[in-house]
């Protein structure tokens, strides 16, 4: 006769303790101390001095490479980093690849297409298998909020049958609507560079607006966490369907009237409307079978949205003299901002991309170095 005993949680063996550096992962900016953010940003600034884009006028140096570049390649020499992108990306994936190669790491690119993900493998299994091959770090993007955290738990030996732990870093390159911490860091870096705060990375006194689809934006959540932590005042602006009042619990302000506040802003960070992330279950019932994507998602129409929230030349003219415009990309020109504004002197869009590389270098060095 056998007796069935309730399984106590204590009966499950605890995962083995890992002797690892304290900051092996970067999953989110929320909760990170300001000093920790500054540590990463200062390192990014050092890298920017070496790899930052040179004005075309300087031409190529006789040796062919900027000073210090060879030495940089020793920093993560011998490390293997896998890019696990389960969701479309151009900028972020290439940026992580360039950053890893600058530091001398080997990079493996994995996308859902052409991998076992298309055979139905779960994200956790994919990550465990990659880690079991001795890879040192995974950069992960996934459509589900919490995916990176889930992978971290699995790699540390939780929540899977084997309970085996791997010394593998996890860097979140965007999980659902939750966070995109390296974007948050590069946005902070861009603001610091534009307002001459690269020595202190102190953003106090600056007012940052995040305009548009804030509710569905992982960029916004990382921006709010990072920017408020470093002292900025952050105002989220958009219609209530995209900028719900409860966002104010994240430490920012909420406003539905852009024209009222535009003259007070130092930074206008414009987001794309992420039609793909909105609940279209109601819109899907449209009798005329029109594509729900462009008409639902909480805004009545692109026309109405643009009328009240698009950054137009008229609105740009009302901004402070030194105010800057940022956009995490991809831009829907003519919707959240007009082409002439996107290409104007205020636009920091390409600088954000350049700073993205050095910020990601710093993050990888901190996690894997």
């Amino acid at each position, binding site marked *: 006769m056998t007796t069935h005993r309730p399984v106590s949680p204590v009966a499950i063996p605890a995962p083995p303790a890992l002797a690892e550096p304290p900051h092996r992962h970067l999953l989110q900016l929320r909760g990170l101390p300001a000093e920790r953010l500054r540590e990463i940003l200062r390192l990014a600034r050092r890298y920017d001095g070496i790899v930052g884009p040179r004005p075309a006028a300087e031409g190529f140096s006789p040796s062919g490479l900027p000073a210090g570049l060879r030495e940089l390649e020793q920093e993560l020499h011998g490390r293997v980093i896998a890019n696990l992108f389960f969701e479309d990306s151009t900028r972020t994936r290439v940026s992580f690849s360039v950053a890893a190669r600058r530091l001398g790491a080997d990079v493996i690119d994995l996308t859902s297409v052409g991998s076992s993900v298309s055979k139905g493998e779960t994200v956790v299994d994919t990550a465990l298998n990659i880690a079991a091959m001795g890879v040192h770090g995974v950069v992960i993007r996934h459509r589900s909020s919490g995916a990176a955290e889930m992978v971290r738990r699995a790699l540390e030996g939780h929540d899977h049958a084997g309970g085996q732990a791997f010394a593998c870093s996890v860097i979140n390159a965007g999980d659902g609507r939750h966070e995109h911490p390296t974007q948050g860091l590069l946005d902070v870096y861009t603001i610091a560079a534009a307002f001459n705060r690269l020595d202190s990375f102190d953003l106090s006194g600056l007012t940052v607006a995040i305009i548009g689809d804030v509710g569905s934006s992982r960029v916004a959540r990382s921006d709010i966490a990072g920017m408020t932590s470093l002292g900025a005042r952050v105002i989220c602006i958009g*219609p*209530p*369907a995209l900028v*719900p*009042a*409860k966002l104010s619990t994240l430490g920012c302000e909420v406003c*539905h009237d852009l024209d009222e506040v535009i003259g007070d802003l130092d930074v206008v960070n414009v987001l794309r409307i992420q039609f793909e992330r909105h*609940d279209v*279950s*109601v*819109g899907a*019932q*449209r*009798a005329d079978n029109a594509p729900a994507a462009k*008409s*639902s998602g*909480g*805004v*009545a*129409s692109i*026309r*109405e949205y643009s*009328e*009240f929230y698009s950054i137009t030349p008229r609105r740009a003219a009302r901004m402070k003299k030194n105010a800057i415009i940022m956009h995490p990309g991809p831009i829907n020109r003519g919707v959240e901002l007009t082409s002439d504004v996107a290409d104007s002197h205020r636009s920091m869009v390409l600088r954000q991309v350049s700073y993205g590389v050095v910020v990601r270098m710093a993050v990888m060095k901190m996690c894997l170095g």
Partner: protein
Amino acid sequence: MSASALLIRGGRVIDPASGLDRLADVAIDDGVVREIGPGLTALPASRVIDAQGCLVTPGLIDPHVHLREPGNERAETIATGTAAAVAGGFTTVCCMPNTQPALDNDTMVHFVLSRAEKTGLCRVFPVCAVSKARHGVELAEMQLMARAGAVGFSDDGDCVASAGLMRRALAAIKATGKAMMQHCQEASMTGGAVMHAGVVSTRLDLGGWPREAEELIIERDVRLNRGIGCAYHVQHMSSAGSVEIVRRARAEGQPVTAEVTPHHLLLTDQEIERSGFDTHFKMNPPLREAGDIAALKKGVADGTITVLGTDHAPHAPETKQVPFDTASFGIVGLETAVALYALALVEDGVIDWPRLIAMMTIEPSRLCRLEAMGLGMLRAGGPADVTIIDPSERWTIRPANLAGQSRNTPFIGREVKGRVVGTIVAGKLVMSRR
């Protein structure tokens, strides 16, 4: 609208917004109230209106009318509907968006406002659709419509059925600063319904529209709105249970208001049987029972119901002179409103004249955000929208003395007391029975 000077002499001037209630004269010039006080001297060339024995009140406001233009000009137009309005003492009407096409974009707002400017006898403000084409699927461009002049939002005629859409609508309307006006009808319970679900509908074997179909929507919306705080207005409230829900919500401090029509205060479902299936007793929501009338009156008396609205619903005869189950819903109400409300509420001792006037002036003005324009109140320097009512004049409601295009009312032949004798819009005497 060029206006000559007017002097309204000797009436009982009532302005609920300021608490004014005294015998006085009202001097009007150039569209504006110049002075209110006893013994005023008429300006040269002033027309003098003798208002002795009359109430002189702010121009009445009806927050709930159907003007049918565009799309059903056979039943009513902005011209004929506003003629009915001024005949009934209304200087401002808010028209519902269930036209064809629906008032669901800013171009339609401009259409209504410009038609009213050209053909209207009183002020007209559109209440616009919550959802595109009033289909209840996608939000309409409410921010653009609010900017163009919409004074509130409703899919009236239809309820916003989807709770998800309703929540988004409440948040979006809150941001416009206007009110959400809900036609409260849980449609899954009212398929084929043509009258109140009760003893009479059972006897007549007509489809029943239960009270719960109204109450559930109010209960749901009040709950959805708790974290949002949008101004929420229950249109044409009909059931005792609804009064209770609104009373509770208001006691909690929620921004909830409700309106009641004359017919829901005066008629019950028994009229349908007594009249032999007269389709003029077919309304949406339906006429209910004596207990509901008592509860609605109590709601008016204790301030649960603050707004009076007629739901003026003109229909061409061919849509009413058909069997009961296929007839259109609704009756005209603008021209008979003052007399019928007086009968239901003042004669019955539920409220006094000043409160009745408040519920037809400053209260709907607040609901439709018209206070900033000075509407719904009577004060020196404000717009000269004035209604003169003889509270003791007896008259009989006859088709011949209705000014609107449609005559669908069950009150034909009824002798009533209290009649509007003069209506002044922006300083111009647009209707006079003296």
